[in-house]
């Protein structure tokens, strides 16, 4: 199956995507964009989160065919040059340990801040409740989102 899509601003075409393959597999296996992660491949962990036509989705739940003609932004494309504020904030706040959850969390946090520039703790928890992290206990992830919302304050 042929799938054409725009990924991080560039037109990409995959000629041999399988019928049952997902957007996650297209990104990782066909396009070599391995920044998007695959911790469960059944919609439970959020590690595969990307923007699909501007909407946050679990790419493991999107069939490759559904992404045909779509515009996709992955963690690699979040900031054209260097790291976006939210990515910086994750590093500075210590919100990264093994980092396997990080791409998905960075995407989810980015989306939250786009809709709510100054979220409270509960807003953050609600927005990130679909992203599992096994390392951090989440506290520094909450810190990171606050930090990204107001980059000048240090915790």
């Amino acid at each position, binding site marked *: 199956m042929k799938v054409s899509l725009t990924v991080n601003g560039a037109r990409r075409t995959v000629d041999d995507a*399988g019928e049952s393959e997902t957007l996650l597999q297209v990104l*990782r*296996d066909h396009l*070599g*964009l*391995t*920044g*998007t*992660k*695959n*911790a*469960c*491949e*059944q919609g*439970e*962990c959020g*590690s595969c989160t990307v923007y699909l036509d501007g909407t946050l989705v679990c790419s493991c739940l999107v069939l490759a065919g559904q992404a045909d003609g779509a515009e996709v932004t*992955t*963690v*690699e494309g*979040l*900031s054209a040059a260097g*790291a976006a504020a939210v*990515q*910086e904030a*994750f*590093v*500075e706040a*210590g919100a*990264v*340990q*093994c*980092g*396997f*959850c*990080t*791409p998905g969390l*960075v995407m989810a946090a980015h989306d939250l801040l786009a809709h709510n520039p100054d979220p409270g*703790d*509960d807003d*953050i*928890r*609600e927005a*990130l*409740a*679909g*992203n*599992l*992290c*096994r*390392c*951090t*206990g*989440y*506290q*520094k*992830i*909450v810190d990171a989102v606050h930090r990204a919302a107001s980059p000048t304050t240090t915790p």
Partner: protein
Amino acid sequence: MTALDTVVAGGRVGERATRLDGYPKVTGQFAYASDLHRDGMLFGATLRSPVASARIRSLDLSGVAGSPGVAAVLVAADVPGKNRFGLNFDDQPVLADTVVRYQGEPVAVVAASSPARAWDAVGRIVLELEPLPGVFDMEEALADGAHRVQEVGNVLRHVHIERGDTRSAGADVWVEGYYETAMQDQAALGPEAGLAVPAEDGGVDLYVATQWLHADREQIAPCLDLPDEKVRLHLAGVGGAFGSREDIHMQIHACMLALRTGRPVKLSYGREESFHGHVHRHPARIWMRHGATRDGRLVAVEARLLFDGGAYASSSPAVLGNAATFAAGPYDVPHVRIDGTVVYTNNPPCGAMRGFGAPQVCFGHEAQMDKLARALGIDPVDLRLRNALEPGLSLPSGQVLTGSAPVREVIARCAALPMPDAEPLEGRGAFGYPGGTGNVTRGEGIKRGVGFAVGFKNIAYSEGFDDAGSARVTVRLEGDEPVAEIHTAAVEMGQGLYTLLAQIVRTELDIDRVVVRQADTAARNTGSTSASRQSMMSGGAVQMACAQVRAALFERARSQAGAGAGNHELSVGRGWVNAGGHPLARVADLLDEPVSREAVYHHRRTGTFDDKGQGDVHVCFAFAAERAVVDVDEDLGLVRVVQVAAAIDAGRVLNPLGMSGQVEGGTAQGLGLALMEEVQLSDGAIRNASFTDYLIPTIADMPPVVSAAVEDPEPGVPYGAKGVGESPTIVATAAIVAALRDATGRELNRAPVSPDELAGLRPPAATQGPPPCPDVPGQDPVPLYFQSGSGQQRLM
């Protein structure tokens, strides 16, 4: 192909240092094992046994022959060398040959041109099994006539510790309890994965996410029938571990397939396979009796421990040794009798998980301390303070605490941490109630409880194991700037070790630019990233190597300066070698040739148990106390953990940011075992091998964790620092369940606590009493008395 060598900026020992691999990770550039790629690589897939106990009657591969894209199908007969491996004993087949002993045991492996083709081929293999009886219950494993899981029988190890005489302890009050903890999964988000690349010399290069490169190699090479030097391991990005990567999973399979096909082979597990592909935390059954005098002096502890080791030994013998030595808690107890057994069953193998035997017994001894406090009418924190261990006192195993043991300090410090702000019962946000955004209560039927727990953990390997650390530090010029490079075989699995090693180099050499080379087996063995040991062991080796580099720089400075150096003491700082505080030579000018030094750091030697379980078996200890505050909705059995307060014995804090991250993350895993995490089995088969059915804490489940470090440096250890990776996990489960008991008044003797138990719909876990102790030749693991096969011992 693998993660880049990492360059670091900023941060010395004691400073808040951000991760050196932070930017590659937030931008998606960091290459985890599951991200590896080689042109022309094949993909592996594994056929696993669908049942837990059976004889292999036949294995028909004819359906695979000629399948498109299939390059190899390998079975037990294709294992080039010995078809056995294992951490403590080589009792586990690479591929099952005659029988399968647990559900999920690998039977055949396939390499094909795509993952889909590989899985298709696996589906075409016809595996005919003849059912065998199985043993799925750890008490049944001890019964006469039980099915023997291994030839040596079902007792893997029994440890007996005896001091004084509990019957004449003079206790006025006794309390008794029975406790159970469930099988827990490490649930590292990064799946098991690796890439094996055949080499021209007939050997293989394996890029893999593991916790100990050299122990992997030691197990892999004999199975491949290759000498060690032809099996080269390189660390690939590790997506968390928590013990799950201590054992071999896909390593040997990928190497076999690569050697057979002559092509790179990648093997990467999915989530379900991951549940079958690594060991778990041992489920435990614990019987305890505690005796105290009326004035609150703990005088006797009797404990019977039973751990389910599953089908193969893994590191079970060491887990049991830990559990037994910690069973009485961090308390001074004159009369003790502890009997611990770990058995083989046909359940999935259990082994290392954060805490390594300590969380289970902590759950028991802390519940007992609360019972005792109630029976005596003494405040539970006060009772713990009265009985706390201190330097000069000894463990039940007779080991005298010679180093730092700030037990009282962690208890007092934790108890003094601020309680959560008072909240009105009504009008809280959704996350303010049990059930969270489910909106199941607006405050009615809510009860609050507070629980407290103290625990401890040994640092580094025990029972005579000399798990030395080693590192090479090289200083050279890049342009006009000195750069220090660290090369070790130490595994960074997410906890922040490399950041810490770089902090040590900056501190010791005053060089800002530090590069950490990818870990591989070209570096010397530096032991496992586990047992909270790497800060001490690899950190110690880096510190020693730095001292030697410094000495070499001084020698060069002296010979360059001639008499100018005088007799002054030399130091490095701000890019100069200084003599008596005055600049003597620019470091950059001393580096025409790089300086490179390798150092090996040994911890103090430990001993083994005698026949009464007495022995100086551990190196040193890290203590922790946590207090949990919970709200329980008793109608629905739902819980909101309101706050966890933690006081952690760190010896000395090397990186406050890294430390609090360990405390918060470790607490989350303990919370998981308290409230939700359980690998559920029926006839040995895992029923919930997915993140849909095996729940781990989300951001909505986690309370704020308020943490404080207690700094009491460990003598004779680099910077006096102790690892903090495990102690928070150990106490969190016990503290949270204690808070649930306080809120509900229920017994809650099993972790995880189910909603049904909280709502009073399910009785406490019941017991017929402890099983009799098995008859064993001695304190050592039973297989040792039967065979000479070895695991890590060869590395000593």
